Protein backbone atom coordinates (compact mmCIF):
# COMPACT_ATOMS: atom_id res chain seq x y z
CA UNK A 1 0.00 0.00 0.00
CA UNK A 2 1.72 3.14 -1.11
CA UNK A 3 1.16 6.55 0.40
CA UNK A 4 -0.59 9.29 -1.59
CA UNK A 5 1.49 11.15 -4.14
CA UNK A 6 2.50 14.63 -2.97
CA UNK A 7 4.67 15.80 -5.87
CA UNK A 8 4.07 14.61 -9.39
CA UNK A 9 5.75 15.61 -12.62
CA UNK A 10 4.90 14.44 -16.09
CA UNK A 11 7.09 14.91 -19.15
CA UNK A 12 8.65 17.91 -17.44
CA UNK A 13 11.05 19.73 -19.73
CA UNK A 14 13.16 22.84 -19.22
CA UNK A 15 15.27 24.43 -21.90
CA UNK A 16 17.78 27.25 -21.34
CA UNK A 17 18.27 28.49 -24.86
CA UNK A 18 19.74 25.58 -26.78
CA UNK A 19 20.69 23.64 -23.66
CA UNK A 20 18.27 21.06 -22.37
CA UNK A 21 18.44 21.18 -18.58
CA UNK A 22 15.60 18.77 -17.84
CA UNK A 23 14.37 16.37 -20.47
CA UNK A 24 10.87 14.81 -20.31
CA UNK A 25 11.12 13.98 -16.65
CA UNK A 26 8.53 11.85 -14.85
CA UNK A 27 8.56 11.89 -11.09
CA UNK A 28 6.21 10.82 -8.30
CA UNK A 29 7.07 11.47 -4.67
CA UNK A 30 4.95 9.99 -1.91
CA UNK A 31 3.82 11.72 1.24
CA UNK A 32 6.05 11.06 4.21
CA UNK A 33 9.06 9.62 2.42
CA UNK A 34 12.62 10.81 2.09
CA UNK A 35 13.27 11.05 -1.61
CA UNK A 36 16.76 11.58 -3.00
CA UNK A 37 17.51 13.32 -6.26
CA UNK A 38 20.99 12.09 -6.96
CA UNK A 39 23.43 12.80 -9.70
CA UNK A 40 26.44 14.88 -10.65
CA UNK A 41 26.40 18.67 -10.80
CA UNK A 42 24.57 19.95 -13.84
CA UNK A 43 22.35 16.89 -14.16
CA UNK A 44 19.19 18.96 -13.74
CA UNK A 45 18.49 18.43 -10.05
CA UNK A 46 18.28 22.08 -9.03
CA UNK A 47 16.24 23.00 -12.09
CA UNK A 48 13.77 20.26 -11.21
CA UNK A 49 13.52 21.58 -7.66
CA UNK A 50 12.92 25.13 -8.89
CA UNK A 51 10.11 23.88 -11.11
CA UNK A 52 8.55 21.96 -8.21
CA UNK A 53 8.50 25.25 -6.27
CA UNK A 54 7.25 27.32 -9.18
CA UNK A 55 10.38 29.47 -9.11
CA UNK A 56 11.09 28.69 -12.72
CA UNK A 57 8.68 28.00 -15.52
CA UNK A 58 8.84 24.62 -17.29
CA UNK A 59 9.20 24.77 -21.07
CA UNK A 60 6.64 22.00 -21.33
CA UNK A 61 5.09 19.25 -19.26
CA UNK A 62 3.04 19.43 -16.11
CA UNK A 63 3.76 19.44 -12.41
CA UNK A 64 1.61 19.26 -9.30
CA UNK A 65 2.98 20.03 -5.86
CA UNK A 66 0.92 19.31 -2.72
CA UNK A 67 -2.15 19.31 -4.94
CA UNK A 68 -1.55 22.74 -6.50
CA UNK A 69 -0.15 24.01 -9.77
CA UNK A 70 3.09 25.87 -8.91
CA UNK A 71 2.64 28.21 -11.86
CA UNK A 72 -0.89 29.32 -11.16
CA UNK A 73 -1.05 28.96 -7.41
CA UNK A 74 2.54 29.59 -6.33
CA UNK A 75 1.59 31.10 -2.98
CA UNK A 76 -0.36 27.99 -1.98
CA UNK A 77 2.55 25.79 -3.00
CA UNK A 78 5.17 27.92 -1.28
CA UNK A 79 3.12 28.11 1.91
CA UNK A 80 3.34 24.33 2.19
CA UNK A 81 6.84 23.71 0.91
CA UNK A 82 10.07 24.75 2.58
CA UNK A 83 13.23 25.19 0.53
CA UNK A 84 16.83 25.14 1.63
CA UNK A 85 18.87 26.26 -1.40
CA UNK A 86 22.32 25.12 -2.31
CA UNK A 87 24.76 27.38 -0.41
CA UNK A 88 22.01 29.11 1.49
CA UNK A 89 22.46 32.84 2.05
CA UNK A 90 21.23 35.03 4.87
CA UNK A 91 21.41 38.73 5.63
CA UNK A 92 24.82 38.71 7.26
CA UNK A 93 24.44 41.89 9.26
CA UNK A 94 21.28 40.61 10.91
CA UNK A 95 21.21 38.04 13.70
CA UNK A 96 19.93 34.51 13.17
CA UNK A 97 16.80 35.39 15.07
CA UNK A 98 16.19 38.54 13.01
CA UNK A 99 16.59 36.57 9.81
CA UNK A 100 13.98 34.08 10.95
CA UNK A 101 11.68 36.85 12.14
CA UNK A 102 11.80 38.45 8.70
CA UNK A 103 10.87 35.14 7.07
CA UNK A 104 8.04 34.70 9.56
CA UNK A 105 6.68 38.13 8.68
CA UNK A 106 6.95 37.38 4.97
CA UNK A 107 4.82 34.33 5.55
CA UNK A 108 2.26 36.51 7.29
CA UNK A 109 2.36 34.63 10.60
CA UNK A 110 1.06 36.47 13.66
CA UNK A 111 3.89 38.11 15.65
CA UNK A 112 3.44 36.16 18.90
CA UNK A 113 3.37 32.86 17.12
CA UNK A 114 6.49 33.76 15.12
CA UNK A 115 8.53 34.31 18.29
CA UNK A 116 7.39 31.03 19.80
CA UNK A 117 8.10 29.10 16.61
CA UNK A 118 11.52 30.73 16.31
CA UNK A 119 12.47 29.72 19.84
CA UNK A 120 11.34 26.15 19.28
CA UNK A 121 13.08 25.89 15.91
CA UNK A 122 16.35 27.35 17.16
CA UNK A 123 16.39 24.96 20.09
CA UNK A 124 15.80 22.06 17.74
CA UNK A 125 18.89 22.86 15.67
CA UNK A 126 21.00 23.87 18.70
CA UNK A 127 21.40 27.49 17.72
CA UNK A 128 19.75 29.07 20.76
CA UNK A 129 23.10 30.23 22.17
CA UNK A 130 24.11 32.10 19.03
CA UNK A 131 20.63 33.27 18.02
CA UNK A 132 21.47 36.91 18.67
CA UNK A 133 24.82 36.89 16.93
CA UNK A 134 25.20 38.24 13.42
CA UNK A 135 24.84 35.54 10.78
CA UNK A 136 28.09 36.85 9.28
CA UNK A 137 29.91 35.13 12.15
CA UNK A 138 28.23 31.76 11.58
CA UNK A 139 30.05 28.74 10.18
CA UNK A 140 28.82 26.86 7.15
CA UNK A 141 27.21 24.18 9.30
CA UNK A 142 25.46 26.78 11.44
CA UNK A 143 24.01 28.50 8.39
CA UNK A 144 22.79 25.18 7.10
CA UNK A 145 21.13 24.53 10.46
CA UNK A 146 19.62 28.00 10.44
CA UNK A 147 18.12 27.10 7.07
CA UNK A 148 16.59 24.00 8.64
CA UNK A 149 15.32 26.12 11.53
CA UNK A 150 13.54 28.29 8.98
CA UNK A 151 11.78 25.23 7.57
CA UNK A 152 10.89 24.00 11.06
CA UNK A 153 9.54 27.41 12.01
CA UNK A 154 7.24 27.48 9.02
CA UNK A 155 5.78 24.06 9.77
CA UNK A 156 5.66 22.99 6.15
CA UNK A 157 4.51 19.67 4.72
CA UNK A 158 7.40 19.21 2.34
CA UNK A 159 11.02 20.22 2.83
CA UNK A 160 13.21 20.45 -0.24
CA UNK A 161 16.91 20.48 0.55
CA UNK A 162 19.34 21.21 -2.27
CA UNK A 163 22.81 19.78 -1.61
CA UNK A 164 22.34 20.14 2.14
CA UNK A 165 25.57 18.38 3.06
CA UNK A 166 27.98 19.95 0.61
CA UNK A 167 30.83 21.69 2.35
CA UNK A 168 30.07 20.19 5.75
CA UNK A 169 32.62 18.20 7.73
CA UNK A 170 31.82 14.55 8.52
CA UNK A 171 30.71 15.22 12.09
CA UNK A 172 28.37 18.04 11.06
CA UNK A 173 27.08 15.93 8.20
CA UNK A 174 26.17 13.12 10.57
CA UNK A 175 24.31 15.49 12.87
CA UNK A 176 22.57 16.94 9.89
CA UNK A 177 21.42 13.56 8.65
CA UNK A 178 20.08 12.77 12.13
CA UNK A 179 18.10 15.97 12.00
CA UNK A 180 16.61 14.96 8.66
CA UNK A 181 15.68 11.57 10.07
CA UNK A 182 13.88 13.19 12.96
CA UNK A 183 11.95 15.42 10.55
CA UNK A 184 10.84 12.36 8.65
CA UNK A 185 9.74 10.86 11.98
CA UNK A 186 7.34 13.77 12.33
CA UNK A 187 5.71 12.96 9.03
CA UNK A 188 7.39 15.62 6.92
CA UNK A 189 8.08 14.69 3.31
CA UNK A 190 11.68 15.39 2.44
CA UNK A 191 13.18 15.79 -0.98
CA UNK A 192 16.92 16.16 -1.02
CA UNK A 193 19.39 16.45 -3.80
CA UNK A 194 23.03 15.53 -3.63
CA UNK A 195 25.98 14.49 -5.67
CA UNK A 196 27.35 12.52 -2.72
CA UNK A 197 25.50 9.32 -3.35
CA UNK A 198 26.90 7.23 -0.52
CA UNK A 199 26.12 9.81 2.09
CA UNK A 200 22.44 10.01 1.42
CA UNK A 201 21.73 6.43 0.53
CA UNK A 202 21.44 5.72 4.22
CA UNK A 203 18.54 8.09 4.79
CA UNK A 204 16.61 7.97 1.52
CA UNK A 205 13.59 5.70 1.18
CA UNK A 206 13.70 6.07 -2.55
CA UNK A 207 16.09 7.73 -4.92
CA UNK A 208 16.10 8.93 -8.49
CA UNK A 209 19.40 8.89 -10.34
CA UNK A 210 19.80 11.87 -12.64
CA UNK A 211 21.98 12.02 -15.67
CA UNK A 212 21.98 14.89 -18.15
CA UNK A 213 18.44 16.03 -17.49
CA UNK A 214 16.82 12.63 -17.27
CA UNK A 215 16.05 10.17 -14.53
CA UNK A 216 17.89 7.00 -15.39
CA UNK A 217 16.69 4.95 -12.49
CA UNK A 218 14.27 5.43 -9.65
CA UNK A 219 13.21 3.25 -6.77
CA UNK A 220 14.29 1.90 -3.41
CA UNK A 221 18.05 1.71 -2.91
CA UNK A 222 18.07 -2.08 -2.34
CA UNK A 223 15.92 -2.68 -5.40
CA UNK A 224 18.22 -0.62 -7.56
CA UNK A 225 21.23 -2.50 -6.31
CA UNK A 226 19.66 -5.82 -7.08
CA UNK A 227 18.53 -4.62 -10.45
CA UNK A 228 21.73 -3.03 -11.58
CA UNK A 229 24.50 -4.80 -9.75
CA UNK A 230 22.79 -8.13 -9.69
CA UNK A 231 23.43 -8.49 -6.00
CA UNK A 232 24.25 -6.57 -2.92
CA UNK A 233 27.58 -8.30 -2.23
CA UNK A 234 30.69 -7.24 -4.02
CA UNK A 235 33.85 -9.27 -3.54
CA UNK A 236 37.33 -8.29 -4.51
CA UNK A 237 39.45 -11.34 -5.11
CA UNK A 238 43.13 -11.57 -5.85
CA UNK A 239 44.12 -15.11 -6.66
CA UNK A 240 46.07 -17.25 -9.08
CA UNK A 241 44.81 -20.43 -10.62
CA UNK A 242 43.65 -21.68 -13.98
CA UNK A 243 40.38 -20.64 -15.44
CA UNK A 244 39.20 -18.91 -12.28
CA UNK A 245 36.55 -16.61 -13.81
CA UNK A 246 34.69 -19.50 -15.37
CA UNK A 247 34.87 -21.56 -12.21
CA UNK A 248 33.58 -18.67 -10.10
CA UNK A 249 30.72 -18.05 -12.49
CA UNK A 250 29.45 -21.57 -11.99
CA UNK A 251 29.11 -21.02 -8.24
CA UNK A 252 25.68 -20.70 -6.69
CA UNK A 253 24.75 -17.12 -5.92
CA UNK A 254 27.39 -15.51 -8.14
CA UNK A 255 25.81 -13.15 -10.63
CA UNK A 256 28.73 -11.68 -12.41
CA UNK A 257 32.49 -11.93 -12.54
CA UNK A 258 34.55 -9.03 -13.84
CA UNK A 259 38.32 -9.34 -14.39
CA UNK A 260 40.09 -6.20 -13.15
CA UNK A 261 43.47 -6.97 -14.67
CA UNK A 262 46.38 -8.89 -13.18
CA UNK A 263 45.12 -11.52 -10.83
CA UNK A 264 42.31 -9.39 -9.58
CA UNK A 265 38.62 -10.05 -10.08
CA UNK A 266 35.40 -8.47 -8.96
CA UNK A 267 32.48 -10.74 -8.13
CA UNK A 268 28.90 -9.62 -7.65
CA UNK A 269 26.98 -12.07 -5.55
CA UNK A 270 23.55 -12.57 -4.07
CA UNK A 271 24.93 -14.04 -0.89
CA UNK A 272 28.13 -14.24 1.08
CA UNK A 273 30.13 -16.69 -1.07
CA UNK A 274 33.55 -16.15 0.43
CA UNK A 275 33.85 -19.75 1.65
CA UNK A 276 32.93 -21.19 -1.71
CA UNK A 277 35.41 -18.93 -3.46
CA UNK A 278 38.26 -19.92 -1.21
CA UNK A 279 37.41 -23.55 -1.88
CA UNK A 280 37.37 -23.01 -5.65
CA UNK A 281 40.80 -21.40 -5.57
CA UNK A 282 42.24 -24.25 -3.55
CA UNK A 283 40.67 -26.80 -5.90
CA UNK A 284 42.16 -24.94 -8.86
CA UNK A 285 45.59 -25.27 -7.30
CA UNK A 286 45.89 -21.55 -6.99
CA UNK A 287 46.92 -19.14 -4.30
CA UNK A 288 44.40 -16.90 -2.64
CA UNK A 289 46.16 -13.62 -1.91
CA UNK A 290 43.24 -11.41 -0.96
CA UNK A 291 39.55 -11.74 -0.49
CA UNK A 292 37.61 -8.76 0.71
CA UNK A 293 33.93 -8.06 0.77
CA UNK A 294 32.45 -4.61 0.62
CA UNK A 295 28.76 -3.97 0.54
CA UNK A 296 27.81 -2.33 -2.71
CA UNK A 297 27.11 1.34 -2.65
CA UNK A 298 24.85 3.59 -4.61
CA UNK A 299 27.96 5.01 -6.18
CA UNK A 300 28.57 1.60 -7.78
CA UNK A 301 24.98 1.49 -8.97
CA UNK A 302 25.27 4.89 -10.53
CA UNK A 303 28.57 4.28 -12.23
CA UNK A 304 27.57 0.85 -13.47
CA UNK A 305 24.16 1.89 -14.70
CA UNK A 306 25.31 4.84 -16.71
CA UNK A 307 28.29 2.89 -18.01
CA UNK A 308 25.86 0.35 -19.39
CA UNK A 309 23.65 3.06 -20.83
CA UNK A 310 26.65 4.54 -22.62
CA UNK A 311 27.74 1.19 -23.94
CA UNK A 312 24.26 0.45 -25.19
CA UNK A 313 24.05 3.77 -26.98
Amino acid at each position, binding site marked *: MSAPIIIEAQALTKR*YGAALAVDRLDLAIQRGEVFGLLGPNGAGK*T*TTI*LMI*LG*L*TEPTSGSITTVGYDP*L*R*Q*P*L*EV*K*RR*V*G*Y*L*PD*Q*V*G*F*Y*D*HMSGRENLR*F*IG*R*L*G*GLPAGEVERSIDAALARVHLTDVANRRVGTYSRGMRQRL*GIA*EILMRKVEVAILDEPTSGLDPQTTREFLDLIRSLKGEGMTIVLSSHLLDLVQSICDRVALFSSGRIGLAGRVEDLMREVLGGTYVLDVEATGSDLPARFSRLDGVRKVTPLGGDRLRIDAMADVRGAIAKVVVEADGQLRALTMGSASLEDVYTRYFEEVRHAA
Partner: protein
Amino acid sequence: MRREGSPWTGVGAVFRRELADNLLSVRMRLLEILVVLTGTAAVYAAIGEIKNVVGEDRFVFLRIFTVAREPLPSFITFLAFLIPIVAIALAFDSVNGEFNRRTISRILAQPIYRDALLFGKFLAGLATLAVFLTALWLFLMGLGIFFLGVPPSGEEILRGLGFLLVAIAYGGVWLALAMLFSILFRAPATSALAALSFWLLFAVFWGMIVPLATEVVAPIDPYDPRSQITAVNTAVGLNRLSPNTLFAESTLALLNPSTRALGPVFASQLHGALVGAPLPAGQSFLLIWPQLTGLIAAAILLFTIGYMSFQRQEIRA
Protein backbone atom coordinates in the same frame (compact mmCIF):
# COMPACT_ATOMS: atom_id res chain seq x y z
CA MET B 1 -2.67 32.08 -17.61
CA ARG B 2 -3.78 33.87 -14.46
CA ARG B 3 -1.99 33.47 -11.19
CA GLU B 4 -3.82 33.37 -7.90
CA GLY B 5 -3.14 35.27 -4.69
CA SER B 6 -2.32 38.88 -3.96
CA PRO B 7 0.91 40.44 -5.24
CA TRP B 8 0.92 42.60 -2.10
CA THR B 9 1.55 39.72 0.31
CA GLY B 10 4.82 40.40 2.06
CA VAL B 11 5.33 43.96 0.79
CA GLY B 12 5.08 45.25 4.35
CA ALA B 13 7.70 42.85 5.66
CA VAL B 14 10.13 43.61 2.83
CA PHE B 15 9.49 47.34 3.25
CA ARG B 16 10.26 47.28 6.97
CA ARG B 17 13.42 45.24 6.57
CA GLU B 18 14.73 47.37 3.71
CA LEU B 19 13.91 50.60 5.49
CA ALA B 20 15.78 49.47 8.58
CA ASP B 21 18.69 48.44 6.36
CA ASN B 22 18.73 51.76 4.54
CA LEU B 23 18.48 53.89 7.63
CA LEU B 24 21.22 52.00 9.45
CA SER B 25 23.64 51.53 6.58
CA VAL B 26 27.03 53.18 6.81
CA ARG B 27 26.90 54.48 3.26
CA MET B 28 23.68 56.38 3.99
CA ARG B 29 25.22 57.89 7.11
CA LEU B 30 28.18 59.16 5.13
CA LEU B 31 26.03 60.64 2.39
CA GLU B 32 23.69 62.22 4.93
CA ILE B 33 26.62 63.91 6.61
CA LEU B 34 27.89 65.13 3.24
CA VAL B 35 24.53 66.53 2.19
CA VAL B 36 23.79 68.11 5.56
CA LEU B 37 27.19 69.80 5.64
CA THR B 38 27.02 71.14 2.10
CA GLY B 39 23.38 72.14 2.54
CA THR B 40 24.10 73.96 5.75
CA ALA B 41 27.07 75.73 4.22
CA ALA B 42 25.04 76.81 1.20
CA VAL B 43 22.11 78.05 3.27
CA TYR B 44 24.31 79.77 5.79
CA ALA B 45 26.12 81.58 2.99
CA ALA B 46 22.80 82.51 1.44
CA ILE B 47 21.56 83.96 4.72
CA GLY B 48 24.70 86.08 4.97
CA GLU B 49 24.11 87.33 1.44
CA ILE B 50 20.45 88.11 2.13
CA LYS B 51 21.37 90.12 5.21
CA ASN B 52 23.72 92.26 3.14
CA VAL B 53 21.03 93.29 0.72
CA VAL B 54 18.86 96.09 1.90
CA GLY B 55 15.39 95.96 0.52
CA GLU B 56 11.96 94.59 0.91
CA ASP B 57 11.14 91.12 -0.30
CA ARG B 58 7.90 89.28 0.32
CA PHE B 59 9.58 85.93 -0.16
CA VAL B 60 12.82 86.53 1.67
CA PHE B 61 12.56 83.17 3.34
CA LEU B 62 12.58 81.20 0.09
CA ARG B 63 15.78 82.99 -0.89
CA ILE B 64 17.75 80.85 1.53
CA PHE B 65 17.35 78.00 -0.93
CA THR B 66 18.11 79.89 -4.11
CA VAL B 67 20.64 82.59 -3.34
CA ALA B 68 24.28 81.74 -3.92
CA ARG B 69 27.35 83.48 -2.62
CA GLU B 70 30.58 82.94 -4.48
CA PRO B 71 32.30 80.52 -4.46
CA LEU B 72 29.49 78.34 -3.09
CA PRO B 73 26.58 77.39 -5.34
CA SER B 74 23.04 77.73 -4.07
CA PHE B 75 21.34 75.05 -2.04
CA ILE B 76 19.14 73.86 -4.90
CA THR B 77 22.16 73.49 -7.16
CA PHE B 78 23.79 71.32 -4.53
CA LEU B 79 20.64 69.32 -4.12
CA ALA B 80 20.18 68.75 -7.86
CA PHE B 81 23.70 67.39 -7.83
CA LEU B 82 23.56 65.29 -4.66
CA ILE B 83 20.07 63.77 -4.62
CA PRO B 84 20.92 61.42 -7.53
CA ILE B 85 24.03 60.26 -5.68
CA VAL B 86 22.01 59.45 -2.58
CA ALA B 87 19.35 57.65 -4.62
CA ILE B 88 21.94 55.65 -6.55
CA ALA B 89 23.70 54.70 -3.33
CA LEU B 90 20.40 53.42 -1.99
CA ALA B 91 19.47 51.25 -4.94
CA PHE B 92 22.46 50.29 -7.08
CA ASP B 93 22.82 46.90 -5.37
CA SER B 94 19.29 46.33 -4.20
CA VAL B 95 18.40 43.41 -6.45
CA ASN B 96 21.77 42.06 -7.55
CA GLY B 97 22.82 42.22 -3.90
CA GLU B 98 20.19 39.58 -3.14
CA PHE B 99 21.68 37.38 -5.83
CA ASN B 100 25.22 37.88 -4.59
CA ARG B 101 24.28 37.15 -0.98
CA ARG B 102 22.42 34.09 -2.29
CA THR B 103 19.33 35.16 -0.42
CA ILE B 104 17.17 35.55 -3.50
CA SER B 105 16.06 31.95 -3.94
CA ARG B 106 15.33 31.57 -0.25
CA ILE B 107 13.27 34.77 -0.15
CA LEU B 108 11.35 33.97 -3.31
CA ALA B 109 10.62 30.48 -1.97
CA GLN B 110 8.54 32.16 0.73
CA PRO B 111 4.84 32.59 0.01
CA ILE B 112 5.23 35.94 -1.75
CA TYR B 113 5.37 37.06 -5.37
CA ARG B 114 8.44 38.66 -6.87
CA ASP B 115 6.37 41.83 -7.08
CA ALA B 116 6.45 42.15 -3.31
CA LEU B 117 10.23 42.12 -3.20
CA LEU B 118 10.52 44.84 -5.85
CA PHE B 119 7.68 47.04 -4.54
CA GLY B 120 8.97 46.73 -1.00
CA LYS B 121 12.48 47.68 -2.03
CA PHE B 122 11.41 50.65 -4.11
CA LEU B 123 8.99 51.99 -1.51
CA ALA B 124 11.59 51.60 1.22
CA GLY B 125 14.13 53.52 -0.88
CA LEU B 126 11.60 56.26 -1.55
CA ALA B 127 10.65 56.43 2.11
CA THR B 128 14.30 56.71 3.09
CA LEU B 129 14.76 59.59 0.65
CA ALA B 130 11.57 61.25 1.86
CA VAL B 131 12.55 60.98 5.51
CA PHE B 132 16.01 62.30 4.81
CA LEU B 133 14.89 65.21 2.62
CA THR B 134 12.10 66.18 5.00
CA ALA B 135 14.50 66.22 7.92
CA LEU B 136 16.96 68.30 5.93
CA TRP B 137 14.18 70.68 4.87
CA LEU B 138 12.96 71.16 8.45
CA PHE B 139 16.50 71.71 9.66
CA LEU B 140 17.20 74.39 7.07
CA MET B 141 13.86 76.11 7.69
CA GLY B 142 14.79 76.21 11.37
CA LEU B 143 18.18 77.60 10.50
CA GLY B 144 16.45 80.25 8.41
CA ILE B 145 14.11 81.28 11.22
CA PHE B 146 17.00 81.43 13.64
CA PHE B 147 19.31 83.58 11.57
CA LEU B 148 16.86 85.70 9.62
CA GLY B 149 14.64 86.30 12.58
CA VAL B 150 11.45 86.17 10.52
CA PRO B 151 9.05 83.26 10.39
CA PRO B 152 8.05 81.99 6.95
CA SER B 153 4.64 83.05 5.70
CA GLY B 154 1.94 80.54 4.90
CA GLU B 155 2.61 80.83 1.19
CA GLU B 156 6.32 80.34 1.68
CA ILE B 157 5.65 77.14 3.62
CA LEU B 158 3.31 75.97 0.86
CA ARG B 159 5.91 76.67 -1.80
CA GLY B 160 8.59 75.06 0.35
CA LEU B 161 6.49 71.91 0.68
CA GLY B 162 6.00 71.87 -3.07
CA PHE B 163 9.76 72.08 -3.46
CA LEU B 164 10.15 69.15 -1.05
CA LEU B 165 7.69 67.11 -3.08
CA VAL B 166 9.54 67.86 -6.31
CA ALA B 167 12.83 66.88 -4.67
CA ILE B 168 11.38 63.53 -3.60
CA ALA B 169 9.98 62.87 -7.08
CA TYR B 170 13.37 63.76 -8.58
CA GLY B 171 15.02 61.31 -6.17
CA GLY B 172 12.45 58.71 -7.18
CA VAL B 173 13.57 58.89 -10.81
CA TRP B 174 17.17 58.18 -9.87
CA LEU B 175 16.12 55.50 -7.45
CA ALA B 176 14.15 53.73 -10.17
CA LEU B 177 17.05 54.08 -12.59
CA ALA B 178 19.58 52.64 -10.12
CA MET B 179 17.20 49.82 -9.29
CA LEU B 180 16.71 49.06 -12.99
CA PHE B 181 20.47 48.68 -13.39
CA SER B 182 20.65 46.53 -10.28
CA ILE B 183 18.20 44.18 -12.00
CA LEU B 184 19.92 44.24 -15.39
CA PHE B 185 23.50 43.80 -14.17
CA ARG B 186 24.60 41.07 -11.82
CA ALA B 187 27.74 42.85 -10.62
CA PRO B 188 27.04 45.78 -8.25
CA ALA B 189 30.07 47.68 -9.57
CA THR B 190 28.64 47.57 -13.09
CA SER B 191 25.22 48.76 -12.02
CA ALA B 192 26.70 51.54 -9.91
CA LEU B 193 28.86 52.72 -12.80
CA ALA B 194 25.97 52.56 -15.24
CA ALA B 195 23.79 54.67 -12.96
CA LEU B 196 26.62 57.11 -12.25
CA SER B 197 27.35 57.54 -15.93
CA PHE B 198 23.74 58.59 -16.49
CA TRP B 199 24.06 60.98 -13.59
CA LEU B 200 27.22 62.43 -15.12
CA LEU B 201 25.51 62.67 -18.50
CA PHE B 202 22.57 64.66 -17.16
CA ALA B 203 24.43 66.69 -14.54
CA VAL B 204 27.36 67.73 -16.70
CA PHE B 205 27.17 66.81 -20.35
CA TRP B 206 23.52 67.29 -21.22
CA GLY B 207 23.92 71.04 -21.35
CA MET B 208 26.71 70.61 -23.92
CA ILE B 209 24.96 67.99 -25.99
CA VAL B 210 21.66 69.80 -26.38
CA PRO B 211 22.96 72.78 -28.45
CA LEU B 212 24.85 70.42 -30.75
CA ALA B 213 21.86 68.14 -31.17
CA THR B 214 19.61 71.12 -31.80
CA GLU B 215 21.85 72.30 -34.64
CA VAL B 216 21.47 68.94 -36.28
CA VAL B 217 17.77 68.41 -35.65
CA ALA B 218 16.52 71.96 -36.18
CA PRO B 219 19.13 74.05 -38.03
CA ILE B 220 18.52 77.79 -38.04
CA ASP B 221 17.82 79.32 -41.43
CA PRO B 222 18.86 83.02 -41.23
CA TYR B 223 16.13 84.00 -43.71
CA ASP B 224 13.36 82.20 -41.85
CA PRO B 225 12.50 83.57 -38.39
CA ARG B 226 10.23 80.57 -37.79
CA SER B 227 13.24 78.26 -37.87
CA GLN B 228 14.61 80.15 -34.88
CA ILE B 229 11.48 79.41 -32.89
CA THR B 230 11.68 75.76 -33.92
CA ALA B 231 15.28 75.65 -32.80
CA VAL B 232 14.49 77.17 -29.41
CA ASN B 233 11.56 74.84 -28.88
CA THR B 234 13.67 71.84 -29.88
CA ALA B 235 16.37 72.85 -27.44
CA VAL B 236 13.83 73.27 -24.63
CA GLY B 237 12.26 69.92 -25.47
CA LEU B 238 15.60 68.12 -25.50
CA ASN B 239 16.61 69.77 -22.27
CA ARG B 240 13.48 68.51 -20.60
CA LEU B 241 14.41 64.92 -21.35
CA SER B 242 16.83 65.34 -18.48
CA PRO B 243 15.34 64.94 -15.00
CA ASN B 244 17.80 67.57 -13.84
CA THR B 245 16.15 70.16 -16.11
CA LEU B 246 12.71 69.24 -14.83
CA PHE B 247 13.92 69.58 -11.27
CA ALA B 248 15.66 72.88 -11.93
CA GLU B 249 12.62 74.37 -13.68
CA SER B 250 10.24 73.22 -10.96
CA THR B 251 12.33 74.60 -8.14
CA LEU B 252 12.82 77.85 -10.03
CA ALA B 253 9.09 78.37 -10.49
CA LEU B 254 8.24 77.38 -6.92
CA LEU B 255 10.96 79.25 -5.08
CA ASN B 256 11.02 82.36 -7.31
CA PRO B 257 7.36 83.38 -7.35
CA SER B 258 8.03 85.96 -10.05
CA THR B 259 8.80 83.23 -12.58
CA ARG B 260 6.00 83.42 -15.15
CA ALA B 261 7.03 80.98 -17.83
CA LEU B 262 9.53 78.17 -18.28
CA GLY B 263 9.88 78.31 -22.07
CA PRO B 264 10.47 80.99 -24.67
CA VAL B 265 8.27 84.05 -24.21
CA PHE B 266 7.45 86.59 -26.96
CA ALA B 267 7.59 90.25 -26.26
CA SER B 268 3.94 90.50 -27.27
CA GLN B 269 3.02 88.04 -24.54
CA LEU B 270 4.62 90.28 -21.95
CA HIS B 271 2.48 93.18 -23.00
CA GLY B 272 0.68 94.56 -19.98
CA ALA B 273 2.41 92.20 -17.58
CA LEU B 274 3.76 93.54 -14.32
CA VAL B 275 7.29 92.24 -14.69
CA GLY B 276 8.66 91.07 -11.37
CA ALA B 277 5.26 90.76 -9.71
CA PRO B 278 4.90 87.36 -8.04
CA LEU B 279 2.39 84.75 -9.15
CA PRO B 280 -0.03 83.28 -6.65
CA ALA B 281 1.12 79.89 -5.35
CA GLY B 282 -1.63 78.07 -7.26
CA GLN B 283 -0.41 79.53 -10.56
CA SER B 284 3.17 78.51 -9.82
CA PHE B 285 2.02 74.97 -9.13
CA LEU B 286 0.11 75.02 -12.38
CA LEU B 287 3.26 76.14 -14.15
CA ILE B 288 5.32 73.19 -12.90
CA TRP B 289 2.54 70.62 -13.16
CA PRO B 290 3.97 69.11 -16.37
CA GLN B 291 7.46 68.98 -14.87
CA LEU B 292 6.23 67.26 -11.71
CA THR B 293 4.09 64.72 -13.56
CA GLY B 294 6.99 64.19 -15.96
CA LEU B 295 9.29 63.27 -13.07
CA ILE B 296 6.74 60.92 -11.55
CA ALA B 297 6.02 59.35 -14.92
CA ALA B 298 9.74 58.81 -15.57
CA ALA B 299 10.08 57.06 -12.20
CA ILE B 300 7.09 54.82 -12.93
CA LEU B 301 8.34 54.05 -16.43
CA LEU B 302 11.81 53.07 -15.21
CA PHE B 303 10.33 50.99 -12.42
CA THR B 304 8.06 49.20 -14.88
CA ILE B 305 10.93 48.30 -17.19
CA GLY B 306 12.82 46.92 -14.19
CA TYR B 307 9.73 45.07 -13.02
CA MET B 308 9.28 43.40 -16.39
CA SER B 309 12.85 42.23 -16.67
CA PHE B 310 12.86 41.02 -13.06
CA GLN B 311 9.77 38.90 -13.64
CA ARG B 312 11.47 37.16 -16.55
CA GLN B 313 14.77 36.63 -14.80
CA GLU B 314 15.92 33.14 -13.91
CA ILE B 315 16.62 33.12 -10.22
CA ARG B 316 19.33 30.49 -10.13
CA ALA B 317 22.66 32.07 -9.56
